């Protein structure tokens, strides 16, 4: 410190130097509770509560018995946890027609979703690949028409589709519904895949052609291994979309092959004596479980896939 004192006596210039040294230096200090942080995290908290509260009510209610529900404390946690409503919703709840709960609808939905997802993604990825890399004559026209399909309201096509399915003998069957889902998923999925494949470097495709790979060789050995993120995105879009579908399910199938969503609707809407809120809540949660699991399991890949499709290129 003696040095500093000596410097100070040396004059005005040295004084200025020591003042500079004492001034701000390094990273700017940040306060944990600033107005900005309070506002930011406060908003996030309020919005989370807003979105999570209904889910909370559903879970809590589904775990209560009917006497407890009649007390009317919607937000209070269950005094006595019971899984009875879940069992009932799954296996015993009655629709107007039968009393075997959601299980029937669940297996129908699985039988609808699995082939629809696989078929639509397989076809759409090939479509996208062909449109992006093998520019055939009329590719642009084809693509435009396909995309136009994405903008036509489903309601317009409902009845013509019924006629078509009836004519080819698939009306009312599960395979008919699979066909419908595959067709209606085509525009948006093709767009998705085409854009992704276009974003991959064109030279990779050229190199593979020089290396003697053909249409299928390039698709399976070069393009597919590079496209995991976009396949995950497509998978999520299709699984949730088809699982949650109600309209097509109710129009194109018969009661014995109704998907889970339609079954749920029928359970909730069939009035026989008391309305069993706990069973309805449990049934709804059960129906939503599949998309929920898909989201949780693939959240990270999903975000990465969307970013990969959007940013690159």
């Amino acid at each position, binding site marked *: 410190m003696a040095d500093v004192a000596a410097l100070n006596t040396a004059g005005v210039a040295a004084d200025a130097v020591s003042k500079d040294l004492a001034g701000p230096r390094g990273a700017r200090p940040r306060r944990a509770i600033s107005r900005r942080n309070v506002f930011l995290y406060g908003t996030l908290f309020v919005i989370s509560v807003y979105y999570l509260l209904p889910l909370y009510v559903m879970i809590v209610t589904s775990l209560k018995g009917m006497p407890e529900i009649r007390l009317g404390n919607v937000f209070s946690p269950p005094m006595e946890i019971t899984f009875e409503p879940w069992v009932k919703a799954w296996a015993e709840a009655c629709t107007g027609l039968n009393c075997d709960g959601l299980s029937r609808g669940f297996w129908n939905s699985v039988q609808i979703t699995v082939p629809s997802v696989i078929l639509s993604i397989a076809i759409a990825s090939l479509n996208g690949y062909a449109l992006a890399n093998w520019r055939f004559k009329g590719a642009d026209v084809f693509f435009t028409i396909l995309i136009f399909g994405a903008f036509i309201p489903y309601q317009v096509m409902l009845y013509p589709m019924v006629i078509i399915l009836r004519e080819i003998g698939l009306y009312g069957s599960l395979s008919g519904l699979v066909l419908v889902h595959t067709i209606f998923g085509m525009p948006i999925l093709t767009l998705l895949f085409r854009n992704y494949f276009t974003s991959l*470097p064109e030279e*990779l495709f*050229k190199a593979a*052609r*020089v*290396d*003697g*790979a053909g249409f299928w060789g390039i698709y399976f050995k070069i393009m597919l291994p590079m496209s995991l993120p976009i396949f995950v995105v497509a998978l999520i879009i299709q699984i949730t979309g088809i699982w949650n579908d109600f309209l097509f399910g109710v129009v194109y199938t018969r009661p014995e092959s109704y998907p889970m969503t339609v079954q749920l609707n029928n359970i909730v809407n069939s009035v026989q004596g008391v309305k069993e809120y706990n069973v309805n809540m449990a049934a709804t949660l059960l129906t939503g479980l599949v998309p929920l699991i898909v989201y949780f399991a693939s959240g990270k890949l999903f975000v990465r896939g969307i970013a990969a499709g959007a940013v690159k290129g």
Partner: protein
Amino acid sequence: MSVSIKELTLSFGDVEVLKRLDLEIERGEFLVLLGSSGCGKSTLLNCIAGLLDITDGQIFINGRNVTWEQPKDRGIGMVFQSYALYPQMTVEGNLSFGLKNARVPKDEIARRIARAAEILHMGPLLKRKPAQLSGGQRQRVAIGRALVRDVDVFLFDEPLSNLDAKLRAELRVEIKRLHQQLENTTMIYVTHDQIEAMTLADRIAIMRAGSIQQLAEPHTIYNRPVNKYVAGFIGSPSINLIDGTIEMNGVPSFVAGRTRIGIERYAFSGNGPKPGGATFGIRPEHIFLGRAAAEEPFTAEVDVEVIEPMGADTLVWSKLDGHELRFRVDGQVPIRTGERVPIGFDPARASIFDAETEMRL
């Protein structure tokens, strides 16, 4: 002839990208296609590779008409600017992909990969994925992928443009060495970098707007450019171009304002000098300063306006009678802005172009 292109035309709709292009390339030759972006050089290469369908004309490789053949059947290997390595395969997988597609026996594949790895010094890299390689290593693998195909014609599409300056210089030499090592291998190399073109090429084809402007050895292109475009394109810093007229009273001379340059020793092509508008081109490195200038046939005095020291030499910007004049002097010569210095050059080393046709006179 290794590669011969006859009346090649390519149009996209109404736009003619390549116009009735003829090109003959000898076996074992290193040909560089040089031009600014959009001149059609990469397009031409893609046509040779068979990656683009041509509109008209013919392409022969090793005497075989390959105009309608698939890229894999043309006997070519190609190296791309972005390396285009298959990211999910190891280096070994990248090298063997083409051979597996061609159903080459396993031991033959192993033999060829070993040879390529030895030539390109990438033995230790074989088990790695492209993401684990540096830019230079990736490009080496890409060259290796062309090498294992055991073909006679290599096509390079700006292979060094993605690399930094130091690596580019290293790999440039390596490519040249590779060409010397592989006898009878024809290389066609696309670039916009004139240094690469000058250093690598046996012959350079300078392209502009879908046609070849000049096809000659680097030396000829540099010293005797056929037109003003080629003269301006080759050489860095670029050639000084002075607009003026040729006068013929007694001895032919080039006149621009008050400057009169005697061009009686200039080797005119064709019928010799004609009076009329012309552009006089002299390269910055052909202009001398100080005592050396006094011995040159043409001398003048100019003011130094800006100097750009580059270490080995210094670029001086000045004006000769109102016309921009750049010249290059040794980096050790003391020279200051604002100085008035004597300069001189030999008009016989210049290039003179017709003012209208822009062709060399």
